[in-house]
Each structure stands twice: as C-alpha cells, then as structure tokens.
C-alpha cells in the first residue's frame, strides 16, 4: 500500500470516530450547546482542555520554530504551560463559582455595565479570530501534505471540514470528541518522537534523550547539533540571541494570554464543583505537559536529522545531489512549503546560513509533520502524525468557533440586541457567526502574518492585554468599577492591536506594515511580546480611572465576596 492511501485510511478512520461521537452526543438544548450540562469529570475535562488547547500551533508549528530558534524560543514552552498556574489560582475557581456560561457575562455582571460586556465581546472576537487564522495556516499545511496538493487548496478543503465539524455538534459533542482527539494527537506526537530519540540517543524518553549522548558521536546530543550548525554557519542552538527584555515580555504575554483566552476559560465552567476547577487545571497541564516536554526534543532532533539528510557524509563533506533526494523532500516540494533552487548549478543541495549560497528553503511549519519521514520511520507512523496534526487543528478551531459564536449569539444578540430571541434563533445566529469567522480566517490564512505558532502568539498578546486584566481585577479588587474596567480593556486592546498592526500590517494585510519585528518600534519588543505591555497599560488605566470615579455599588461588592467562597456554587444559569 502506498503512503497516500495509508494516510487517507488513517485520517479517514480518526475522522469517522470524531464525527460518530459528535452525532451520538448531538446538542439538544442551548445549555448543552454551550457548556455540556456541567457533568464533566476533572480528568476527562483536563484531557478535553488539552485537546482544545493544543492546536496546530502546539502540534504542527511549535517544535519547528524551536528547531530553528533554539533556546530563544523557550518562551513558547514556558508561556503556554505556566499560564495554567495562573488559571488555577487566579481565575478558574472563581469563575466557576460565578456560574454563568461565557466570559463576557462575567465581565458584564461584575462591572454592572452592558458596555463592559460588549467591550469584552469585541476583545474576545478579536483574539479568537486571530487565533483561528493561525489554526487555518496549520490546517492548510496538514491537508496540503496528506492530500498532496498545494497549500492554498489544502486550506480551502480544511476550512470546509472545520466548518462542517464545528456546526455539527455543540460543546457536548466537542467535549467527548476532544477526549478522543487528545488520545489521537498525543499518540501521534509521542510515537515518532520516541522512535527518533531511540535512534539518535538510545533513550526512549525524548525529554531525557535531548540531554543524553548522541550515539553517532558519543558526545552530548546538543553538542553534536551545535557542531553541525557551526560547520554550516548557522547561529548556535543553546545560546541566547534574543534580548532578555523581549524573551521576558514574550513569556509574560503568552502566560497571561493563556489565562485570558475565552475558549480555555469556558472549559472550567463545565466542572461540577469549584474544587474541581482547580484540579481540572492541573489535569489539563498534565496532558499538555506530555506534549510540551517532548516538543523541545522533537525540535532539536528534527534539525539534526534534516542536516544529516542533506549532508549524509557529515557537514564537512559535500551535500546530497538533488537527483538523489529522499522521497519526503519530493513530497513536500509539491506543497510549495519546501523549495530547492540550484543557485550554483552543481546539482547538489547546498544548505547553509549564507543567503546567497543557500539552496534549500524549509517552512518551519512542516518540521513536525515531516519529522517521521525524515527519520525513515514506517508508513503507519507518518500517517498517524498527519491524523494527529489534523486532530489538533480541528479541535482547537472548533473550540474557538464555539467561543466566537456564543459571544455573538448569547452575549451580543440575546444579551443586547434582541433578548426575546427563540432558542432556535439563537442557535442559528451561532452557526452564522461561525461561518463568517471561518471565512475571514481562511481569507487571512492565505497570507498569514507568520508561522502558525507566531500568529497564535499574537492572539495571546491580545487576550493578555484585554481580557486577563479585567477578569483578575474583577475578582481580586472590589474597587475597580465599570468605567475603570471599560477604559482599561479599551486601552489595553487598542495599544496592543496598533502595535501589532504597525509590525504585521493593518488587519494583517501584507505590505501595510511600517516596522518589522527585526527592528521593532520600541526597544527590542517584538509585536508578539507586546501583550505584556498592553496588560500593564490595562491595569494602570483601570486603577487610575476607578480611583477617580465612584466605587462600585454594594451589591457588586457582595457579588465579589460571594465568588471568592466556594460554598453554594450550584449549577449555572443562563441569565
């Protein structure tokens, strides 16, 4: 059986599984559509959160970025896990106690203002759409490879499938489907990593293999990699090249963005008790850590294997001839994500750091998917990783679309424009919102502002600057009032989005940027790191404005006191 048929079979089988579960658990009432009736146990919820959380950015893109960025990209690893500590301590238990369905509902009630709720809806939609653009990039890469088409066609097919999939089930369908998706994606990620770690170091645990000796040289793996990179003129892997300021702010931004992203927060609304919200965050991190502890090993090992493929006799000898290239190179050439240009006409693939001499361009987003092929692993492992990548992208895209559609139908239409809308009308509005969000994200995904994980990092910056500070101040301070919160969210969102647009183009449209991340506007702060500054602005403005205006009414202060105490949570209500 050839690889293409095998890919289709494995991917088809996993899809049949998800769709089967979605149909079996089809959402009936609106309450089930949004929050799965609150009957989800913490371990299962943790696993579903893991699938929800680990998107195309984590699965497909992150290790590839680490592979080329080395130590500098550690912010992704620390940021996207450390945020769970903040969630567990600062947000999840109190929001569960509050007991409503959506993040804007909390902000609207706590800041006793429908404008606060509307601003939260806008923040949520902006962050989530940016996030979906990143997912679409990943979906395009995965589909283009496994269907062997160019990346734009892959993106269109992927968008159609994401839409069908998200519309079919609500949260309930998604919760159980996501447990299945987690299992598929974690198996798909770790099996090739274990094989590769065994090949390169003899250690079956990739996270330990990364710090073990390479069997080829007897030297530590990272020392061996550094040697290869040095021969070819690339920058070192384990040393710091980015500024400490930017690394610090980038990590802050990803951490608090994690705690401010609505599709993750709503997960904690679905556990039975307040205590379960805390442990759910822990379980989520357990399942996430399985991938995140493996990712840095995948990154370093993929880079090593890539170089060894091009230089089969060592980096000081001649590279491989283009005609003798392995099948995986030829396969990825079809997608347009890997390119060879014989600049000096010698028929060899010269891969070096020098831009004038380098003949091989590798899109970072293909590293994880290509990894098993590069390491010559069996066909079923290659098919499995395609299925895993798609599971990761689909589950997160679906979760985000749920968050967007509930913000529009529940918070905007039912909460503001037309409170008398029927349940049926509300579900219809939710589905239309999903369709529009997918269309926008697909259009922008054709010319994405960065690799999948970088685009997603921008979404985190936006959530960090707008939603996280409002939620945290709403719980930990009784003094922040309606005007303060609204001013804070608007200020945080606006400065961050302007900074991003200045560096990535207005509305992410190519060619409209005034600055680049290589030479940013402020100090060495890249657009992906600016969320931390935006959050600071949000906090400062909210405090300043609140202390100059009237303190919140007594009943709001009582609300804050009540959400701080677990007892009496009960089940949630829709209004």
């Amino acid at each position, binding site marked *: 059986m050839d690889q293409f048929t095998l890919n289709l079979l494995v991917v088809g089988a996993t899809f049949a599984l998800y769709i089967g579960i979605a149909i079996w658990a089809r959402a009936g009432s609106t309450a089930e559509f949004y929050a799965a009736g609150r009957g989800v146990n913490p371990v299962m919820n943790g696993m579903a959160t893991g699938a929800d959380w680990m998107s195309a950015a984590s699965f497909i893109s992150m290790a590839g970025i680490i592979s080329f960025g080395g130590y500098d990209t550690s912010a992704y690893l620390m940021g996207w896990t450390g945020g769970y500590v903040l969630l567990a301590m600062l947000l999840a238990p109190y929001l569960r106690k509050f007991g409503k369905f959506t993040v804007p509902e909390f902000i609207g009630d706590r800041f006793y203002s429908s404008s606060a709720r509307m601003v939260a809806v806008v923040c949520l939609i902006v962050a989530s759409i940016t996030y979906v653009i990143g997912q679409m990039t990943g979906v395009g890469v995965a589909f283009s490879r496994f269907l062997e088409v160019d990346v734009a066609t892959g993106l269109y097919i992927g968008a159609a499938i994401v839409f069908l999939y998200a519309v079919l089930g609500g949260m309930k369908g998604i919760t159980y489907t996501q447990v299945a998706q987690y299992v598929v994606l974690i198996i798909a990620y770790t099996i090739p990593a274990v094989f590769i770690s065994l090949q390169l170091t003899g250690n079956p645990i990739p996270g330990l293999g990364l*710090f073990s000796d390479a069997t080829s040289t007897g030297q530590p793996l990272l020392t061996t990699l550094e040697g290869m990179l040095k021969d070819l003129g690339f920058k070192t892997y384990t040393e710091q090249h980015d500024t400490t300021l930017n690394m610090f702010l980038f990590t802050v931004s990803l951490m608090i963005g994690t705690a401010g992203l609505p599709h993750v927060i709503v997960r904690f609304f679905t556990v039975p008790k307040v205590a379960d919200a805390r442990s759910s965050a822990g379980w989520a991190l357990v399942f996430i850590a399985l991938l995140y502890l493996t990712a840095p090993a995948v990154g370093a090992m993929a880079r090593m294997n890539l170089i060894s493929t091009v230089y089969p006799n060592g980096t000081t000898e001649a590279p491989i001839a283009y005609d003798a290239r392995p099948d995986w190179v030829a396969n990825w050439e079809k997608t347009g994500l890997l390119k060879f240009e014989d600049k000096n006409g010698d028929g060899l693939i010269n891969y070096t750091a020098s831009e004038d001499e380098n003949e091989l361009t590798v899109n970072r987003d293909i590293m994880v998917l290509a990894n098993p092929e590069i390491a010559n692993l069996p066909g079923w492992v290659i098919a499995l990783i395609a299925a895993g990548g798609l599971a990761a992208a689909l589950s997160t895209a679906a979760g985000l679309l749920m968050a967007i559609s509930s913000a529009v139908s529940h918070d905007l239409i039912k909460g503001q424009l037309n409170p008398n809308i029927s349940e049926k009308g509300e579900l219809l509005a939710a589905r239309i919102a999903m369709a529009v969000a997918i269309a926008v994200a697909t259009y922008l995904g054709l010319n994405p502002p960065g690799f999948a994980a970088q685009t997603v990092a921008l979404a985190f910056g936006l959530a960090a600057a707008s939603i996280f500070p409002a939620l945290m101040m709403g719980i930990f301070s009784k003094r922040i009032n309606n005007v303060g919160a609204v001013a804070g969210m608007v200020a945080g969102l606006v400065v961050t989005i302007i900074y991003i647009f200045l560096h990535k183009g207005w509305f992410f449209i190519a060619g409209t940027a005034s600055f680049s991340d290589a030479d940013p506007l402020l100090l060495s702060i890249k657009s992906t790191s600016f969320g931390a500054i935006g959050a600071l602005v949000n906090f400062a403005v909210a405090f300043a404005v609140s202390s100059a205006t009237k303190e919140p009414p007594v009943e709001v202060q009582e609300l804050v006191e009540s959400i*701080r105490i677990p007892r009496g949570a009960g089940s949630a209500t829709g209004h």
Partner: protein
Amino acid sequence: MADKSSSNAYWKANVSMIRVFLVIWFIASFGMGILFRPMLKGIEIGGTDLGFWFAQQGSILVFLVLIFTYAARMNKLDREHGVDE
C-alpha cells in the same frame, strides 16, 4: 453559610498562599530559565547548562507540582473555614 469575618480570614489565607506559589512560579520560569541563566552557566547538563534545562523542561515540571499542591492545600483550607461544597 460562613459568616463574614470567617470568609475574610479564608480569603486572606488564600491570597497569601497564592503569593508564595507565584514567587516559586516566577523563580522556576522567568528566574531560572531567563534572568539567572548567565549565573547558572557553570552547572552543565547534557551539552548545555541548567538554565536551558529549566527553560525547556524544568519549569513545566515545577508548574505541575505547583497546581496540584495548591489544589490540595485549598481543599484543606476550604474545609477548615467551612466553605467547602
């Protein structure tokens, strides 16, 4: 339902616990992984140094321990103050 002074004491205990956990959280990630890395250069681990290990492995392990410890301690605190469910 717990009375007001007991729930104030509960909240105070919670906030001071959060403060301690956040200090550890900060040291394990921003500290060991970024800010103090130059000082940890001497401690070698598999071809690199301890700071690199914390940035790519250690911090995540510390986060896991932190969340479960916090959850367990809070369950105890909930019961002590009679605010558990």
